[in-house]
């Protein structure tokens, strides 16, 4: 592989605390190197441009069964909304794009790593098939644990060690990356059409509370020392007044500290917090409690969050929170898909229109931005749209624009039908803060990479790391007065170098370097009890044999394994 020298750019690398210094970045054999190590490099002139590490997405629904249901049952998401083919493969869809479009669009935005937010373990071969067909970007996928019968039974009996052994087995069986928890207990209750509405509402039959599931999984995670922390989608998500439940969930992390060898500091990542920051007690008087939420988060550095920003688009909601989607379809009366997955989880999919003409939508829009703007540590607050739930990921550049420009926020707010009531119910209008490019780099690469425990590979530009470099046509010394130029620059990066290969140039994909599947292999001591439990459940309750459930090596594509030895 060749040598590359990225010259004269303004470099933003929060992992090394480089804040826009003019520097050269050297690349050799797919890795970042000291520029002195280069002999005869090709040069990219980045003068007057911002140079960052390739983007890292901490939470996005891009591959797997519920994503695919969203694609299948929404032909209207393709009609007049798909661009014409300009790469190797066609690019279809808007809110739930095809796998090819997903890979190309992330690359165009300068992203190189995307963490699939929820993998139903039973469906792991499907997830890996889609990963194979998602070009360029490296993927990891988090299996869901929060409603898994094994997990519920072990945690009810305080058997952390057994739960850890099972977790290690499942991560290996599905080639998964981390512990995802969606509406703990509530999704199991949905098997009977019920829900757990607070963290103290016990799960039917299993008789364990969501609170105990959450703390049990934090303990399991730290017992194993996984790269990422427990990754939580809170109970009672999406309902007025639910900030109380969110704060209750946050408090469960108190007293826990991270134990791992991957540079991660948090024990709990709470995802798409926008959906969990609502005050009021009905849709009529819903208001923002983003300040309350962020006061807590700012004061507790063992928590990280991502915002789940509403982008005011027609989109497709999809989550393993089955009861939430059922509630949503009874609100908007659109089509509703649901899949309950035996012993493990469920999923629902409902199209949704976030309209500037709807008060709740515009309040949601304000809350997401408030979360970021109230944050005192953007290394712990990340940009997401919970793609595609609050909006498609292709809107990240627009979210960046809103965060970087008060004028852009004002421009958008002018289109709101219920502007006065939005301003009354939120504090967005009183916030003048405008984030800097350094802070955006924290929120979109350094922070997520650190939280995921992969900051030795992704999210930074230190020698030895993967040569993933995104260059944006933005001059920090001469930022454009038109905020739309910020959006355009982040939507189509000037260059993306992935693994040392120039992948995107002037916003167009010019090469497709091999993509990887990142997974975590944990070594645990032999555990006969857990082996027997797994054997029993597969014998009696699963509809698939244990030998066929575990992903065949042939169906894992270009793996990059992160090894963890918990026996030490």
């Amino acid at each position, binding site marked *: 592989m060749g040598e590359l020298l990225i010259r004269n750019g303004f470099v933003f690398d929060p992992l090394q605390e480089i804040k826009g210094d003019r520097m050269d970045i050297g690349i050799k054999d797919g890795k970042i190197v000291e520029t002195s190590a280069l002999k005869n490099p090709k040069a990219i002139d980045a003068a007057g441009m911002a140079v960052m590490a390739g983007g890292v997405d901490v939470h996005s629904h891009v*591959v797997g*069964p519920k*994503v*695919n*249901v969203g*694609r*299948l*049952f*929404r*032909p209207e*998401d*393709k009609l007049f909304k*798909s661009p*014409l*083919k300009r790469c190797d*493969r*066609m690019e*279809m*869809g808007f809110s*739930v*794009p*095809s*796998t*090819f479009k997903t890979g190309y669009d992330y690359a165009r935005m300068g992203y190189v790593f995307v963490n699939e937010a929820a993998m139903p373990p*039973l*469906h*792991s*071969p*499907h997830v890996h*098939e*889609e990963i194979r*067909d998602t070009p360029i970007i490296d993927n990891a996928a988090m299996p869901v644990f929060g409603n898994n019968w094994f997990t519920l039974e072990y945690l009810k009996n305080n058997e952390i060690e057994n739960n850890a052994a099972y977790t290690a087995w499942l991560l290996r069986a599905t080639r998964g990356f981390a512990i995802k928890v969606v509406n703990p207990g509530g999704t199991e209750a*949905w*098997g*009977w059409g019920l829900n757990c509405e607070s963290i103290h509402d016990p799960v039917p*039959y299993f008789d364990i509370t969501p609170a105990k599931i959450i703390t049990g999984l934090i303990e399991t995670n730290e017992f194993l020392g996984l790269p990422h922390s427990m990754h939580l989608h809170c109970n009672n998500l999406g309902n007025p007044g639910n900030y109380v439940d969110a704060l209750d969930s946050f408090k469960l992390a108190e007293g826990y500290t991270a134990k791992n060898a991957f540079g991660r500091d948090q024990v709990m990542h709470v995802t798409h917090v926008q959906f969990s920051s609502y005050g009021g007690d009905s849709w009529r008087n819903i208001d923002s409690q983003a300040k309350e939420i962020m006061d807590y988060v700012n004061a507790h550095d063992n928590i990280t969050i991502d915002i789940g920003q509403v982008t005011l688009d027609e989109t497709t909601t999809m989550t393993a929170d089955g009861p939430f989607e*059922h509630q949503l379809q*009874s609100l908007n009366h*659109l*089509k*509703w*898909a*649901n*899949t*309950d*997955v*035996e*012993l493990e989880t469920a999923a629902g*999919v*409902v199209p949704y229109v976030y309209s500037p003409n709807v008060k709740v939508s515009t309040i949601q829009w304000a809350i997401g931005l408030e979360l970021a703007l109230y944050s005192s540590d953007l290394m712990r607050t990340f940009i997401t749209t919970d793609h595609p739930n609050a909006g498609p990921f292709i809107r990240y550049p627009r979210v960046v624009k809103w965060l970087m420009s008060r004028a852009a926020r004002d421009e958008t707010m002018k289109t709101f039908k219920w502007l006065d009531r939005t301003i009354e119910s939120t504090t967005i209008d009183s916030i003048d803060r405008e984030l800097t490019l350094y802070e955006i780099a924290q929120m979109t690469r350094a922070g997520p990479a650190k939280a995921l425990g992969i900051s030795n590979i992704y999210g930074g530009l230190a020698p030895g790391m993967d040569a993933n470099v995104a260059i944006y046509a933005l001059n920090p010394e001469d930022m454009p007065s038109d905020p739309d130029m910020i959006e355009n620059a982040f939507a189509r990066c000037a260059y993306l170098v992935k693994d040392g290969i120039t992948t995107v140039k002037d916003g167009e994909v010019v090469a497709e370097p091999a993509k990887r599947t990142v997974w975590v292999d944990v070594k645990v001591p032999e555990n006969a009890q857990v082996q027997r439990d797994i054997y029993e459940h597969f014998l*009696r*309750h*699963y*509809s*698939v*044999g244990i*030998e*066929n459930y575990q992903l065949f090596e*042939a*169906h894992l594509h270009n793996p990059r394994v992160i090894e963890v030895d918990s026996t030490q």
Partner: protein
Amino acid sequence: MAKKIENVGCPFCGVCCDDLVVTVSDDGKKILEVENSCIIGSTVFHRAMSERHTLPRLRQPDGTFKEISYDEAVDYTAKVLHNAKKPLIYGFGSTNCEGMAAAAKVAEQAGAVLDNCASICHGSSFLAIFDNGYPSCTLGEVKNRADVIVYWGANPAHAHPRHMSRYSIFPRGFFTGKGHKGRKIIVIDPRHTDTAQVADIHLQVQQGHDYDLFDAFRTVVRGHDIPDVVAGVRKEQIIEAVDIMKKARFGTIFYGMGLCHSDGRNHNVDIAISLTRDLNDFTKWTIMAMRGHYNITGPGAVWSWQYGFPYCLDLTKRDIAHMNPGETSSVDLAMREEVDAFINIGTDAAAHFPIEPVKRLRKHPWITIDPHPNMATEISDLHIPVGIVGVEVPGIVYRMDNVPIQYRNVIEPPEGVPSDEELFERIYERLCELEAEEAAREPAKAAPEGARAGE
């Protein structure tokens, strides 16, 4: 010593049993015994080696077949695709997802229409799903939780022989320890089928009047009165059935061709979904299509993630995919004589299509890709034999509940015989070569500029 291979998936129906035990001879070439499967499944294995061709057969001017090499067959197929204005690639019920993905790559390159057996089967279900969604579950959920089962317009006793014993009526699951005794079975079918034999309630709906009966069900669920007889079923029977359904802890409606191919078609499925949605206001209900072939769910999945559409994909525009069943569905395209080449893979279009579209397709090059001779191969211009998925070729298939099952092979394919995936990859390479040759021969066609191009 014969060798026993366990956890083998069955390449017959959408039940996708993955617990077969197959005994093969010492040299790994002969299948001796198949355990745990139904009679149809075991036949698939036992028949594997009979009537096999190991070379492609090309039709000669005198009507006979002549064996040709795979290279020649690949070249022939690529040329047919390259020269056709609108080729149709159809089938895929009986192959693996790897083959479907490779075929899509070929179709996109060739500018073809890509369609699967759902087009003449559960396509009407897709239409209903597009409009109304699909509240469903995996089959293990049914086994572990369901205490009421409805089979509507489906006869699994014959079509999906192990469905009732593995998943729905008989198994003892986690919350269903009493098995059959703890479940109520409702069968709705105009005929007294063998499935109706095991039902607690059999409602003999008047043929073609399913929609009326669903409407009555929904009316009763919502607490309103209905006429004394609806669709040939007495009011008391309807109320009794609805009462059972509303009192269920967890129920599943399995429906089959009786809904999607009798009068009303997609509307029948649509109202079945609406009934399921209504029932979820009271308790937990799910619905599932009884998909036929072992991997007919597969193309719907693969092409959805590749293009966003499950079937009837028109890729002939080359820069964007388009789906409009009725316009881009195989039978309609054939009837309008819009396609000028036909590749039939992993199904038997000659046996399953109505005769008129078959006759019209037959006017143009017809290539069949199938392990065995069938009706389609015998009227084809070219038959390309391939390995049998699930017997000789491993791969991923999707069960009727969209759960991916990893299939194994128990024997190797005859020497030199490729898998569907390998074959399509070779066709793809040849097709790219042909296009490159053509581009080298002719200067690239400049697109005419519009009058406003400069603006």
